[in-house]
């Protein structure tokens, strides 16, 4: 990650608050630095941004489209609205759509209590699902010795794909199919346990926000995850210097 030019300071407003941004900061970074917690699911500190989950969409004055805060650079004089009733309604809808597509039954999930989707639903007040469930048929890949991939619980945030390629350098995870048929795959669609490229490092399991990639043998609510990546990346930076 390049060192930031700390001297090119920009000023902008988020929800009416005046905030400062460094040269290359995104709206999301600036907002979080200032305690404005824009919800996200695909974002993960230390990984590249793909603006896939659309939860961080914000309004920027003068722009008639909503912009993802995670990939929009902060600019001088920007007037950003991060929280409005309309935006919150959109966010609730996104979370509800995630719940309707596959099978997210918290009661029987190993990640219950440690799940970002569950926490977000609680935070946004998604207490009920009003849209019809799609019950997409997904597989559970238990072929790996240590881990399980339960695609029923996957939200396609692609954190696993990014951490595997960008940090571990193994490029085991990929996405196949489009839209409702999209699935995370290992290698060219092989069973995870048969993957030649997987190093069994478990980084994908650690960054998974939900109960899709988990350790084998965990019972309900037992799957806890550590936020190791910032430390790992910092160690690597220091080693290079």
């Amino acid at each position, binding site marked *: 990650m390049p060192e930031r030019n700390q001297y090119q300071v920009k000023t902008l407003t988020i929800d009416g608050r005046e905030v400062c941004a460094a040269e290359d900061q995104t709206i999301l970074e600036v907002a979080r630095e200032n305690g404005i917690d824009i919800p996200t699911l695909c974002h993960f500190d230390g990984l590249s941004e793909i603006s896939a989950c659309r939860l961080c969409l914000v309004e920027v004055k003068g722009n008639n489209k909503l912009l993802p805060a995670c990939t929009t650079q902060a600019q001088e004089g920007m007037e950003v609205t991060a929280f409005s009733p309309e935006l919150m309604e959109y966010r609730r809808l996104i979370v509800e759509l995630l719940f309707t597509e596959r099978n997210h039954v918290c*009661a*029987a999930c190993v990640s219950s209590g440690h799940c970002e989707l569950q926490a977000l639903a609680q935070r946004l007040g998604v207490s009920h699902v009003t849209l019809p469930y799609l019950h997409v048929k997904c*597989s*559970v*890949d238990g072929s790996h010795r240590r881990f399980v991939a339960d695609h029923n619980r996957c939200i396609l945030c692609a954190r696993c794909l990014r951490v595997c390629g960008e940090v571990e350098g193994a490029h085991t995870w990929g996405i196949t199919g489009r839209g409702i048929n999209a699935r995370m795959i290992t290698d060219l669609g092989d069973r995870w346990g048969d993957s030649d490229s997987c190093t069994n490092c478990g980084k994908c399991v650690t960054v998974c926000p939900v109960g899709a990639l988990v350790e*084998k*043998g965990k*019972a*309900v609510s*037992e799957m806890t995850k550590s936020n190791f990546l910032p430390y790992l990346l910092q160690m690597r930076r220091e080693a290079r210097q």
Partner: protein
Amino acid sequence: MQTIRIDGVTRVEGHGRITIQLDDNGKVQDAHLHVLQFRGFEKFCEGRPFYEMPALTARICGICPISHSLASAKACDAIMTIRIPETAEMLRRIVHLAQIIQSHALSFFYLSSPDLLMGWDASPAERNIFGIAAKHPEVALDGIRLRKWGQEVIELLGGKRIHTSWIVPGGVAAPLTAEKRDEILRRIPEALAIARRTIGLFRNMMEKLSDEVAAFGNFPTMFMALGRKDGNLCLYGSRRRHEGWLRFADADGTIVADNIHPNDYQQYIGEGVDSGSFMKAPYYKPLGFPAGIYRVGPAARLNIARQCGTPLADAALHDFRMLYGVVSLSSFHNHYARLIETLYAIERMQQILEQPDILDTDVRAEARANESEGVGIVEAPRGTLIHHYKVDSDGMIAGVNLIVATAHNTLAMNRGLLQVADKYLSGHTANEGILNRMEGLIRSFDPCLSCATHASGRMALEIEVVDARGFVITRIVREDSSEPAELTVPHRE
């Protein structure tokens, strides 16, 4: 020919319907309990990792989730081919006993005591737990306290009262702390006092209940339960001591099949199909269907056990046997047996909690799926509960077979209904009190219909008298037990 239909049996767990067939002279020909909904756990658990099963199958029931979790965990232990740590086995046993206490308290005080204390023919408006609370507040309080305590023990051990995920394959998720143990022990004297008081109360009522003893499922059948080597009452079994295998006794109490390893249950138990019901009708295979009728549950367990194994419960059991014999054939005695078992459960819990290594922190063994099949059996409050799983090479569930306690009693409940109908129902003048006795027969089995068929829902009651061509001539509809029956005008079509 006519059919009387009780659609929605009240004050039981789950949703069921009773039909009674009358011949042209109004004499009872046949009677059936139908369970009409389907929940499908056997099917939709397929493809899940086996170690999720204790948590998944716990959701079969809100009353006895512990039993399902335990049977499931035992099946998983078998798939992992492990013996769980001694302390884990003791902790599982305690939570199981706590559940038996709360479930038996629910059955006796909440569901059945209204019939016993208010009378079979009392108005449905007061023949319920609120009526008990108004007329016999001390009994209602005892019931509420005992059930609450059972739930609290489950919560102390498992973190929550219903659907705890503390029971895991290989043992339990967390050890017991000294504070929690002492908290449970502190409350045991009160629970014991309630259990003893209630046995006394019920024993004094028994004289007036001789009709019910005689007619509520009083016939010879075989009985099945888990067995211990020393012949004592067995509720959980022990994989470490190779105890808790299936045992069948005949109507005289003679053991006819013993030491049936869980893996071999299918050699002895056949699964019959009861047309018109989603509930299985298991039978003892060597005798065939339906001659192989057998019963499970509290009375069956006490019929099979030589004794309970704790002093107060043994004294109560002795007292009971002095009155009714060593083998009690009437299903009405399930009530009495439930109270004796409650007493046993409290005493036994204390014994286990006083073991020195109960606080040991080694409570979980780990392993992958080493066996492609596993069977777990426990004695649930309502009787023997069997979970049987097959897994693929990755440990994903490939097949599930569940025989839930209530299902074992299918044939006996039908026969019991016939007996009650025969005794009380002459012609088709079915009145509220007679209907209630039919339901009372079912209640004596304390069935969990939603467990047995994976059916659930609110209880309602409906009776139809149908003529020989199947036309309804009388219909009685009742929304739930708190409302009086509403008779519609008989009509011919």
